């Protein structure tokens, strides 16, 4: 076989290999995305059977929609709370597990186990625990604290949803951090110790910069993931009380599939897409600025 026939065959094999992924992207990602754009320019009520071009009216409605504003606020709180709590807890757990201690494998298994519990199952048991007379308040009562009705107060409902989600998934980030910590060369710490750097300084000046690629990776995954949280909200609070936990995706579901406003639902989808895309691109930009050593 000559070099050129090999090359030509290689091209063919290349196209064949990427064909399923490429056709799939077209059919299930890009074309639907275009359709979302088109639907968002139409008034489309499924029950009424109306489909009518209205230009940017949906977007004007979007601007004046107070429930949407509430939902953006809720989404921002949720994402911020989730990322901060998730990353700091994951890092704390990873640092603890990285100590030379017997039995850390057991603890690692335990911290990781909620990741594998089916999401709705996890949410249901927390729903029971967060009832006014549930075990969370039982535990608080043990310390003489009169616990609130967690899922029925504006702030406590949001806190509950965040905490339930963090404990469910923090194990993933913990494992990523643990691998990153184990990749930090020990001589660096030794040298810093000799220079008289305390534990906190070593952590801030050596550990944090060296694991910054992992911090970035986990923060991207966690933020984008936080915008997709649906089951927990649907089961725990149904977006309530009021609209306090109606995150964007839940609002999208309500508009499209409960109120059957497909056109307006599509408009919210466009907004969700813009937010996710902007956040992802922003984080890739930041990667250049503050992430040390990129391979």
């Amino acid at each position, binding site marked *: 076989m000559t070099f050129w026939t090999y090359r030509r065959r*290689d*091209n063919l*094999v290349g*196209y064949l*290999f*990427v064909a*399923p*992924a*490429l056709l*799939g*992207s077209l059919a*299930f*990602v890009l074309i*639907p*995305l275009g359709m*979302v754009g088109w*639907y968002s320019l139409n008034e489309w009520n499924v029950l009424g059977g109306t489909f009518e071009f209205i230009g940017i009216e949906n977007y004007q409605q979007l601007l004046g929609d107070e429930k949407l504003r509430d939902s953006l606020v809720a989404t921002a709180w949720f994402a911020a709370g989730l990322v901060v709590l998730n990353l700091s807890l994951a890092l704390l757990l990873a640092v*603890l597990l990285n100590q030379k*201690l017997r039995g850390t494998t057991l*603890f*690692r*298994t*335990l*911290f*990781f*186990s909620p990741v*594998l*519990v*089916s*999401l*709705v*199952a*996890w949410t*249901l*048991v*927390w*729903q*029971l*625990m967060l009832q006014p007379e*549930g*075990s969370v308040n039982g535990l608080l009562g043990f310390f003489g604290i009169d616990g609130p009705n967690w899922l029925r107060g504006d702030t406590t409902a949001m806190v509950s949803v965040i905490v339930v989600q963090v*404990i469910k998934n923090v194990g*993933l980030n913990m*494992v*990523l951090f*643990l*691998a990153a910590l184990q990749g930090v060369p020990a001589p660096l710490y030794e040298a810093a110790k000799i220079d008289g750097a305390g534990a906190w300084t070593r952590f801030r000046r050596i550990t944090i910069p060296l694991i910054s690629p992992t911090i970035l*990776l986990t923060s991207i995954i966690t933020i*984008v993931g936080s915008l997709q949280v649906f*089951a927990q909200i649907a089961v725990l609070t149904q977006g309530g009380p009021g609209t306090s936990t109606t995150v964007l995706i839940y609002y*999208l*579901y309500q508009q499209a*599939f409960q109120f059957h406003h*497909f056109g307006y639902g*599509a408009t919210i*989808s466009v907004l*969700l*897409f813009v937010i*996710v895309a902007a956040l992802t*691109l922003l984080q890739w930009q930041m990667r250049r600025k503050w992430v040390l050593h990129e391979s």
Partner: protein
Amino acid sequence: MSRKVWLYGLLCLLCVPFVFPTWWMVTSSMKPISEIFSESLLPSEWTFSTYETVFRMQPFGQQYWNSLYIAVVVTIGTMAVAALAGYAFARIRFPGQNVLFVVVLTGLLIPSEVTIVPLFQMFQSLGLTNTHWPLIIVPIFGAPCVLAIFIMRQFFIALPPELEEAARMDGLGRAGIFYRIALPLSRPALGAVAIFTFLHSWNLYLEPIVYLSTPDMFTLPQALTQFVDIYGGPMWNVQLAAATMTAVPILIVFVLAQRQFIEGLAHTGVKG
């Protein structure tokens, strides 16, 4: 010494919110409903009737099978699509490669929730709502697959080229090199992809409730929320019996295979 005691104490304390819910799920599922809010860690009298009730109220065996076979098919399909595409993008030079890679990667920017309305419309016009098709082919070929492709590509890029050169000298074609050399070596990455994909499919909730409408087609996450009394109030212990049955088998598999499991994930995370 005292530092060790302090560390163990902290670890044990931190463990509570991670372990207690699973414990509570299993034990509460065997409590009579009158005890569901009692603070005791174990039921005073063990009842398994809740487990029978689960199967009486819903076609739970069928739903279990639905979830299981969908997750398995999606996992195998995703592994195949992602390995092929990941390999081609990493190792084969062909015209237009970079553009095509960017086209595929845009899927990372578009959560599948964004396209749920047109996809629903599409499957409805094909008469495929209330079937499992949307839950199978969208994850295999659509947005959820993109991350898998990315992981596989990163893995194949790091593979030493000498291995392939040698095989080529021996007269192996591209497909042969992929199948005989690259694919067997990619086991750790494939393992991580398999775990991610299986869990993603197993946990899917929005898509099933949008596409499926009859109980015998439901998947587990959707079925779990259906155990309510005639007033719509949750039947806690029955719900938790069903939840236990969905959670415990996976947890057992995990405990048995946890080393490969966690290390496979960590490995991919650092590289990816």
